[in-house]
C-alpha cells in the first residue's frame, strides 16, 4: 500500500497570533488506514485537519513551514478547490455546512463544482444518500433532520466529491448515543471500502478500532501508534486532556492483568483470570431527600405552536431543594422543552408548573432570574459585553441593584467558576471553556436557588468537562439545586444524584442514578447506554458510580 498523506516538519502560526498552532509535525498515513486524532482543546487538531486540504494556508493565512504531501501533491502549492477532489473535509460544525433547501441539492453541490455531467451527479446523489442511509429523505429540508441525520448528510455531501481521503473533525460531538453510532457505522463502511479516514474525536471508544492513534498537545504530536499502545498510557492521555479508556484505568488501579480497551474485553479477562465474581446488584437504599419540593410539574403537556406534534405529554415531576438532577434522552426527546418550562420560558399547553407552590405565571421575569437560573448550551448566544465584569453583572443591573453590591456579587460569582481576576478580560477572546464559565457566572451572579444547565459539557475537552462538572458539584454542595441536561452518560453517572430519562416527550425512567443506569433495557428503549464503567458494573453487580468507588468496592470484595 502506498502513502496517502505525508507530513514533514509542518509548523503553522495563524496571522495575528504569536503562539504557533502546529509545531514540527511529522507523520505518515498509509492508504486505506483509519487514524484517530485526539488532544485537548486548542491542541491544533482542527488546524491539522485544515492543513490537509489547503484551507491552511490558503483560507487561514499565517506563517507556514514544512510540507504536506497528499498523493504526490504538495498541499501548500495547490488551491482548496483542487484539493477538494483528493481530501474531503467534514467540518466540526455540521449545522453551518448545510445550506441547501433539499437533501439532494445539498449532495449535488460538490459534484456541480467539479463540472460533472448531470447523470453522473444523479448517480452520486443516489449512491451516497444510500450509503449514509438517507435515500428516502431526498426531498426533505436539511433543517428538519435530526442531529445524526444532519451529520450524515454533511458526510454524504463531501463523499459525493469521491475523495480518496476523508477527514472528519469531531463528527460525533453534538450527537446523542444513537446519532453517534449512526455516524460511526458510516465510518466503518468507509473503511471497508479501503478509503483513508482521519477522525478527530474525544471518545476513547471511537479510537479503539483505529489503526493509528495520534495524540496532540500544545500543537505537537506527542504520540503515534496503535490504540493498544497509545490508549494504555494513562499519564500521557491525562496530560493531553484526553479521557482514558475507563476499563484500562480500572484494571491498572486494581493491579489486574491486561489492558482491556472495551467492556467486552474486560469481561473476558475477568472470567479468564477469575478476578471477581459477578453478584446481584444491590443498590443502596438512597435516603430520600426529605426536603421540600422546590419545582413541580403537574400533568404538563406542551405542543409547539408551529408544529402539530406534541413535545411533552403527561409530565409529572417533583424536584426537591438541593437535588442534583440529570435529564437525559435522545435529541428531540423533549429534554430542553421540559427544562424551559422550569423557568417559564415556555408555558405549558395543559397542566401547571409551580415554584415552591407558586404558579410560574405569577412570577415576574426579573424575579424569575433570581429564582431559577438557566444557562444555555452555547455561551455565544448570550455574551455581548466588552468586559467579563459587565457581562457577569448584567442580570444584577437589570434588577436595579446598586453598583457596589454588583461589584461584590460579580467577584463572588467569578471566584466560584474559577475565573477570579478575569474582570477586565474581553469575553470574546476567551477559550470556549472559559466563555462557558462566564455564562455560568453571569447566571450565578443573581444567586438563583435553582440553576439549570443545557449541555454544560458539550464542545469542551475532557479536562474542561471535568472542571466544569467539579464546579457544579461545588455549587451543589453550597446548597444550590442543580439540573443538567446532557447526552454525556458518564457525566450524568458521576455527578447526578437522580436521573430522568426522556423519550418522545414522556418520562421513561425517573430514579436515583445507580438504579437508573441498572435498567439497561429501558435505556436502550430511549436509545441510550450506560457509560462503559457502569456496563461493567452492571455485569459485576457493583454499586459504585465512579472509578474510585468501584475500585474500593472490588478491593474489599
Amino acid at each position, binding site marked *: 500500500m502506498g502513502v496517502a498523506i505525508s507530513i514533514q516538519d509542518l509548523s503553522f502560526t495563524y496571522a495575528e497570533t504569536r503562539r504557533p498552532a502546529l509545531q514540527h509535525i511529522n507523520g505518515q498515513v498509509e492508504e486505506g488506514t483509519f487514524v484517530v486524532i485526539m488532544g485537548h482543546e486548542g491542541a491544533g487538531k482542527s488546524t491539522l485537519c485544515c492543513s490537509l486540504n489547503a484551507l491552511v494556508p490558503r*483560507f487561514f493565512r499565517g506563517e507556514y513551514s514544512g510540507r504536506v504531501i497528499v498523493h504526490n501533491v504538495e498541499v501548500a502549492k495547490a488551491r482548496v478547490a483542487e484539493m477538494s477532489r483528493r481530501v474531503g473535509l467534514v467540518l466540526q460544525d455540521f449545522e453551518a*455546512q448545510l445550506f441547501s433547501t433539499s437533501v439532494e441539492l445539498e449532495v*449535488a453541490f460538490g459534484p456541480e463544482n467539479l*463540472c460533472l455531467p448531470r447523470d453522473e451527479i444523479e448517480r452520486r446523489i443516489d449512491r451516497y444518500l444510500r450509503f449514509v442511509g438517507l435515500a428516502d429523505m431526498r426531498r426533505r*429540508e436539511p433543517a428538519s433532520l435530526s442531529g445524526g441525520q444532519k451529520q450524515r448528510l454533511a458526510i454524504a455531501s*463531501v463523499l459525493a466529491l469521491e475523495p480518496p481521503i476523508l477527514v472528519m473533525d469531531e463528527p460525533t460531538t453534538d450527537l446523542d448515543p444513537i446519532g453517534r453510532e449512526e455516524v460511526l457505522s458510516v465510518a466503518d463502511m468507509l473503511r471497508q471500502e479501503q478509503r483513508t479516514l482521519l477522525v478527530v474525536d474525544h471518545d476513547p471508544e471511537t479510537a479503539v478500532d483505529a489503526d493509528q492513534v495520534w495524540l496532540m498537545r500544545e500543537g505537537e504530536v506527542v504520540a503515534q501508534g496503535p490504540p493498544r499502545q497509545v490508549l494504555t498510557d494513562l499519564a500521557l492521555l491525562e496530560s493531553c486532556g484526553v479521557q482514558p479508556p475507563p476499563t484500562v484505568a480500572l484494571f491498572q488501579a486494581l493491579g489486574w492483568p491486561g489492558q482491556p480497551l472495551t467492556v467486552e474485553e474486560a469481561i473476558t479477562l475477568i472470567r479468564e483470570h477469575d478476578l471477581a465474581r459477578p453478584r446481584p446488584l444491590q443498590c443502596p437504599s438512597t435516603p430520600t431527600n426529605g426536603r421540600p419540593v422546590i419545582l413541580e410539574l403537574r400533568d404538563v403537556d406542551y405542543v409547539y405552536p408551529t408544529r402539530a406534534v406534541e413535545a411533552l405529554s403527561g409530565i409529572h415531576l417533583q424536584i426537591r431543594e438541593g437535588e442534583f438532577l440529570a435529564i437525559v434522552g435522545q435529541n428531540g426527546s423533549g429534554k430542553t422543552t421540559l427544562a424551559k418550562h422550569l423557568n417559564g420560558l415556555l408555558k405549558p399547553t395543559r397542566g401547571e408548573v409551580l415554584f415552591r407552590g407558586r404558579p410560574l405565571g405569577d412570577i415576574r421575569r426579573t424575579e424569575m432570574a433570581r429564582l431559577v437560573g438557566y444557562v444555555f448550551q452555547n455561551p455565544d448566544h448570550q455574551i455581548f459585553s466588552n468586559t467579563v465584569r459587565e457581562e457577569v453583572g448584567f442580570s444584577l443591573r437589570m434588577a436595579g441593584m446598586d453598583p457596589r453590591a454588583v461589584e461584590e456579587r460579580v467577584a463572588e460569582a467569578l471566584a466560584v467558576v474559577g475565573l477570579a481576576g478575569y474582570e477586565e478580560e474581553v469575553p470574546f477572546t476567551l477559550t470556549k471553556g472559559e466563555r462557558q464559565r462566564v455564562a455560568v457566572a453571569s447566571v450565578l451572579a443573581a444567586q438563583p436557588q435553582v440553576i439549570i444547565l443545557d449541555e454544560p459539557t458539550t464542545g469542551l475537552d475532557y479536562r474542561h468537562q471535568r472542571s466544569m462538572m467539579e464546579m457544579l458539584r461545588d455549587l451543589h454542595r453550597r446548597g444550590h439545586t442543580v439540573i443538567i441536561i446532557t447526552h454525556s452518560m458518564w457525566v450524568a453517572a458521576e455527578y447526578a444524584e437522580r436521573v430522568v430519562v426522556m423519550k418522545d416527550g414522556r418520562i421513561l425512567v425517573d430514579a436515583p442514578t445507580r438504579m437508573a443506569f441498572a435498567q439497561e433495557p429501558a435505556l436502550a428503549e430511549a436509545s441510550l447506554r450506560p457509560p462503559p464503567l457502569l456496563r461493567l458494573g452492571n455485569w459485576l453487580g457493583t454499586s459504585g458510580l465512579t472509578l474510585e468507588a468501584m475500585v474500593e468496592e472490588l478491593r474489599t470484595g
Partner: protein
Amino acid sequence: MNIFLYLDENTWFHRLDPRTKIIGVLLLFGIVMVFNHPLYMAGVALGLLLLGVAAKALPNFWRMRYILALLVVFSTVLWPFFAKGPTPLWSWGRLEVSRESLMYAVAMGLRLASFVAAGLIFLSVTTNEEFTQGLIRLGLPYPVAFAFSTALRLVPTFAGAGATIVQAQISRGLDVESGNLFQRAGKFIPLAVPLFIYAIRHTNMLAMALESKGFNPGAPRTWYLNPQMRRTDTIALAVLAALFLAALLLRLQGYGQVLPRL
C-alpha cells in the same frame, strides 16, 4: 422555525420552468397595477385566489391572513384622505372624502392584497434553488445569483439563532417589553451583539465548507437542476402576456378606472 413559504406539492405550477415563474409573476404584478376600479380589482383578486387554489398555495394565504386583512383595512381607511375626487361625500376642514376616493381606496386595498397574493403563489411553488437557477438562465451572473440565494438561505438560520438569544437574555432577566422607546433601544444591544458575532462565525464556517467542497465562483460548473421550457411554459406565458395586454388596452380605453391615476 420555518419562514420559507415553499410548499412541496406537485401541481403544474410547481412543474413550470423557473424562468416562466419569474416572468409570470412579473406579468401578474403588471396586471395588478393596471386597474383602480374596485369592481375590476375584485375580478383580479378573485382570479388570483383561483390561481392560489390551483397552485395549492392556500395554506400560505391562511398563514398570511392577518397581513392580507390589515392591508385591505388600512388602505381602505387611509387612502380616501389622500386621493381627491369630484363628488364630495364628507368634509372637515381640509380633510375631504369623495365617492371616487372611497372607491379608489377599496381598489387600492384589493391591489395591495393581490400583490401579496401573487408573490405568495410564486414563493409557494418555487424553491430557493429554482429561483436562483431561473435568475441565472435569465442572464444574471452566477456569483451574484449565488450570493443572493445564500443570503436568502441564511435568513431562517439567523432567525433561529435570534430566537435562542432572546430566550437566553430573558432568562438572565432582560425585560424586553417594558420601558420607553429609548430604554427599549438600549435593551437591543444584548440581543444584537451575540447575533452579530454568531453571524460572523457562521458565515466564516460556511465559507470554509464551500471551499472544501470545491466551490470556485469564477470557474465553470454544471447544474443538477435542469429546467426546460416546455409547451406548458409557452402557453402560460402567452396567456399571461395576453391578459396583461388586454387589461392595458381596456384601461387605455378608459375602463376600470375611478380616478385618472395609477
